[in-house]
């Protein structure tokens, strides 16, 4: 049975150094529900360390949670990897860890808090999550796909850390599943302003770093469940699934 899902699949938690401390798992889930979202995606910079806690909070509060990570490629392009399977996400996490160097300085970049499902801080991540990995954008996308995930280029309409700012346009042969438009532009505006979007599927997520930003923009899709698998089908327009932007 097909249903409609409001999806904001690019949210940060307090694990991202640039996100507010208020972005705890439970607080995020409650805010997302308040905003009428049906499914959220957790994509912290170069780490999936808080995904399990958000999933637990989501289960308790009745909100679907998709696990993900926002990988920074060596060209400083941000790519979202979204996964149905926690194990695949953890494999992606291991690959990132092998290719990420440096130690965080909380005074310069912000705290990186690992939380439990009740928003209690249980540890601080010490790696420099804001840094770039040594993986090229092509390698990042390829690896996400090998692990069964969905690869979305983050905020292509922004002037930093985007596929368009760093590399100008979508590299030939890059099997990117969608391009994300930030809350700066509507999908229609971005299509007009950025001719490089032509021929690619566009989605819109909030990239929230603060609670009040959650759900400021989202993508609505039709499918049988709020999963990556169904979202992919909707992007491809398969089996009557569709994106309703």
């Amino acid at each position, binding site marked *: 049975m097909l249903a409609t899902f409001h999806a904001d699949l690019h949210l940060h938690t307090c694990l991202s150094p640039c996100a507010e401390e208020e972005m705890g798992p439970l607080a995020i889930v409650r805010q997302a529900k308040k905003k009428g979202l049906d499914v959220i995606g957790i994509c912290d910079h170069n780490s999936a360390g808080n995904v399990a806690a958000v999933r637990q909070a989501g289960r308790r509060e009745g909100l679907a949670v998709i696990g993900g990570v926002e990988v920074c490629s060596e060209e400083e392009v941000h790519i979202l990897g979204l996964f149905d399977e926690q194990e695949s996400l953890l494999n992606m996490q291991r690959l990132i860890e092998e290719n990420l160097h440096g130690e965080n300085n909380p005074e310069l970049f912000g705290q990186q808090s690992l939380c439990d499902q009740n928003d209690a801080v249980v540890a601080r991540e010490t790696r420099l999550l804001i840094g770039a990995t040594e993986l090229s954008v092509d390698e990042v996308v390829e690896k996400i796909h090998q692990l069964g995930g969905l690869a979305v280029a983050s905020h292509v309409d922004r002037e930093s850390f985007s596929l368009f700012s*760093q590399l100008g346009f979508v590299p030939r042969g890059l099997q990117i599943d969608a391009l994300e438009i930030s809350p700066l532009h509507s999908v229609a505006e971005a299509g007009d302003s950025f001719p490089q979007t032509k021929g690619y599927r566009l989605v819109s997520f909030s990239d929230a770093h603060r609670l009040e930003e959650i759900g400021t923009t989202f993508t609505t899709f039709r499918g049988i469940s709020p999963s990556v698998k169904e979202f992919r089908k909707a992007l491809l327009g398969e089996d009557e699934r569709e994106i309703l932007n």
Partner: protein
Amino acid sequence: MTVKEMAERAELEVLVGADGLDVEVTGGYAADLISTVMANAKQDNVWVTWHLHPNIVAAALIVKLSAIILVSGRQPEQETVQRAQQEGMPILGSSLPAFEIIGRLHGMGILGTV
């Protein structure tokens, strides 16, 4: 000054496109945001960059640059080499970091657009 003369005087290694070095260099541009290169670099400029990605060749062709110069001994990706060969876009390189390369070029009279 041609790309060939510039490469010799600044001691840049020709990594790709040795037969396309007779173009007159109009000036230089430096950036690692390819979007800004496409927006601001001028025809027959040389472009100093850290990037190795194949998109540098396409960007250089769009702006009609005379050559790409890679810094810090960085070696282009295989696909970048192939595309540069196909399209006849010279890629030069140096073990020097960007600031030193640009300093040399500027001292030789290759200037940015002000």
